[in-house]
């Protein structure tokens, strides 16, 4: 340190801060605890962690945009590699080919799942990804309104309203009959001022929307169709692109990302080629180097904030690169067969639980018809029942009333491939017990 100070020409480090005006100097130590050693740090964090009940200690049927899927062991070992986790955004392409190629593979896989032409390198998470999708639609169509189905995740709607204040009160509320968009009313609720129609697939209640009909209605007024899709469900369900979706976006947490109390997650955003210049954020492209080898670079950067400043398509800079890598490795490990299997198991198990729950007297299933891995059940005195179940070690579902006041006692139940027959049977038994 002395040598360094001599080179600089100072005798005390304080001289380096001499330009900080007296009246804004802190002049006292920060009022924070003393630093502690690594073992003590671990103990403090462990103490906090132990005050939480993890999904390893309970049987969880919680979903609603965050799901408890099995994550193959190999995934975390790869993610922990410092070469991936401690690199910055790949600005120097020559020494960032690992990150860049992985992003290219991610973009391609997301397109494969959604049936879209192009994907960006990732967004923060599902709700803000949807807000960006709607911004794209506004910019592309020059219109100001968007219609969002009530069956879209209610927090996504709140996020969109918060992030695009200029949309103001121009949101349309679609009536959801039987947990689905009422397509007969949709045509009346949109017009030539509507930039986009937004639906979710499977929707927030687990149901499968009539995408082909909705798409046709949207196209009639020149509105874009934005589909919020669970990419894991797309292992089983027809890609939204096949029904005419213009933008498919959402939350890719189900693809190998831990629940972590809601983040870091992985927003994704895919679209048709016509929307390429409106895309927010980073995009990786394949090219060649001066040795005639294949290589990858960040491309079409003229859309981005570091070049265009206030005229950029978005302000996004850091995205969720490492989470996108999780999804890419997850999809690589599972492959075609694995993703089909996990999607099918989610479907099969959810239907098994639903059948078993139908045998429990007192439960009502308000939304009939096809669903993927989530469904709504009406449980009398749901608040009390859910808290009793929690005490017995089961998180039975999410009460919908907090977002939908008219859906009293409606509970959203999610089933992933991780739940076993025994766990589902136990849940039904516990329900019987507490309902009596």
């Amino acid at each position, binding site marked *: 340190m002395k*040598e360094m100070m001599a*080179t600089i020409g100072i005798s005390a480090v304080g001289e380096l801060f001499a330009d900080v005006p007296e009246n*804004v*100097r*802190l002049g006292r*130590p*920060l009022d924070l605890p*003393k*630093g502690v050693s690594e073992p003590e740090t671990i103990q403090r964090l462990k103490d*906090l962690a132990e*005050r*939480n009940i*993890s999904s390893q200690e309970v049987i969880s049927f*919680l979903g609603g*945009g965050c799901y408890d899927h099995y994550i*193959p062991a*190999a995934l975390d070992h790869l993610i922990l590699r410092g*070469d*991936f*986790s*401690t*690199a*910055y*955004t790949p600005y120097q392409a*020559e020494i*960032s080919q690992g990150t860049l190629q992985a992003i290219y593979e991610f973009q391609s896989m997301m397109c494969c799942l959604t049936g879209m032409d*192009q994907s960006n390198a990732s967004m923060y*998470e599902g709700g*803000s990804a949807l807000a960006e999708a709607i911004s794209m639609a506004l910019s592309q169509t020059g219109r100001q309104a968007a219609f969002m189905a009530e069956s879209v995740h209610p927090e996504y709607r709140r996020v969109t309203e*918060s992030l695009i204040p200029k949309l103001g009160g121009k949101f349309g509320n679609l009536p959801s009959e039987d947990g689905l968009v009422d397509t007969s009313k949709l045509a009346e609720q949109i017009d030539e001022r509507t930039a986009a129609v937004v639906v979710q697939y499977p929707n927030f209640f687990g149901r499968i929307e009539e*995408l082909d009909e909705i798409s046709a209605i949207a196209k009639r007024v020149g509105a874009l169709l934005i589909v919020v899709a669970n990419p894991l469900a*797309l292992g*089983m*369900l*027809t*890609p939204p692109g096949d029904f005419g979706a213009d933008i498919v976006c959402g939350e890719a947490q189900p693809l190998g990302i*831990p629940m*972590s*109390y*809601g*983040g870091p*997650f992985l927003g994704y955003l895919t679209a048709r080629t016509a929307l390429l210049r409106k895309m927010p954020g980073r995009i990786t*492209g394949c*090219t060649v*180097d*001066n040795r005639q080898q294949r290589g*990858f670079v960040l*491309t079409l950067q003229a859309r981005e*904030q570091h070049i265009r400043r206030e005229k950029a398509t*978005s302000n*996004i800079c*850091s*995205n*969720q690169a490492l989470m996108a*890598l999780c999804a890419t490795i997850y999809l690589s490990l599972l492959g075609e*067969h*694995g*993703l089909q*299997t996990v999607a099918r*198991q989610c479907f099969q198990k959810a239907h098994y639980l639903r059948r078993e729950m139908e045998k429990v007297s007192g439960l009502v299933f308000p939304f009939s018809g096809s669903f993927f891995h989530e469904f709504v059940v009406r449980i009398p005195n749901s608040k009390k029942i859910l808290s009793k179940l929690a005490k017995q070690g089961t998180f039975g579902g999410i009460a919908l009333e907090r977002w939908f006041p008219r859906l009293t006692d409606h509970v959203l139940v999610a089933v992933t491939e991780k739940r076993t027959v025994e766990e589902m049977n136990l849940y039904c038994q516990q329900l019987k017990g507490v309902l009596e």
Partner: protein
Amino acid sequence: MTEPLIFEMSQPGTTGFTYPGLGFPEIDPADHIPAKFLRKTLPLPSVAEVDVVRHFTRLSRLNYSVDVGFYPLGSCTMKYNPKVNEDMARLPGFACIHPYQPDDSVQGALALIKGLESTLCEITGMDAFTLQPAAGAHGEQTGILIVKAYHDKKKNKKTKILIPDSGHGTNPASSARCGYEVVSVKSNSLGGVDLEDLRSKITADVAGLMLTNPNTLGLFETDVTTIAAMIHEVDGLVYYDGANLNAIMGWTRPGDMGFDVMHVNLHKTFSTPHGGGGPGAGPVGVKKHLECFLPTPRVKFDGKKYKLIQKSKESIGSVRTFIGSFGVLVRAFTYITQLGAEGLRDVSTHAVLNANYMMARLKKHFLVAQDRFCKHEFVLSGKPQVQKGVKTLDIAKRLLDYGYHAPTIYFPLIVDEAIMIEPTETESKNTLDAFVDALEKILQEIETNPELVKSAPHNTPVGRLDETLAARKPDINYFHQPGRL
């Protein structure tokens, strides 16, 4: 030395992973879901686990990272990331909890959030924090939405945000996202805000000013309190871009400089790794008069229990789903716990010492943008080298051959041929010396063999890439290329 695409490794029929059986008879999906909704083909690659692991391990080795070496990327704060942070984020009590679990079952998580909020308040001098924003730019957007909510509530007619021309690109982009017109303010000869130009641009319709301090030249804005007062005079708010917080912890605080709202980049200052471009976290801090506008949910402690408050009347809403990038918050909290009050101040002291040491060694070779003590980073100009036919880009690429990541180049925009170096506090004198030696060698090469520099890099997995081709004929989706589906 390139790696095949995962799609090119596919062997149909292979699988990298198997699941246990169902344990009950299957139903036929076609009986429950209309056929049109059942997917026919899924062209994902089929690769065995060992080959997947090798593919991604080989890809990782094509990357440069902090764990490999010195990464002086200015304005990005590429410090070493303690490994214990990673372990803590993976504790089941943190990694395996669902955002809709009952509050009773996540008391530790809520305590951590509350603890991190109050720690950030003390470090920055703000009164309240939200940890919801997912990155720096997301924090800026949140902050400017708060500015907007403040003016809307007071029925102030405000249309403009002022931003110095040296500011990060995200500043104008974030302001524009919130519907504001962006007005650029000139820098003076010291790299600070030109007060005359600022004065001429402060009108009644100015909603606020965005500023980073130290500024992007790495220099402390000595007029900061004057600037804040000028903006406050028209009831404007002053926003602090926390990208450069690593320079001042324990020495001075944005809250004491007159800032009303700010963001912190946890993935920079608080050492949660960058992950090749994310995830980050961009908590936003405000002074008391803006607390009511913070996004929800918010954590409240009633003396016994922590509780999530879902909505509040004047809140701007939610800027993302769920409470935030919790896993990133755990890493930052771990980092702060280990360092403590003194450790955080040492971080800034050493970051500034390291930067000044490097600047002292390098200023005999390069033009220094401003010849005074810098804070955590400094900006050189490669102009003299351009006169010898070698661009700053060439020098940056040649550094890769010497086993370094290049500094940030061509930013800030106010310096020609800018080379922005941020060494961070975690680097030793030996590392700094070795990097300066490498730069000196490159300067010699410019004299003796300029072609070697101009055609660099030579030792990297790939050479310079054809960016024009990439933009002209975008190949951004493997399946979109003819004959691949």
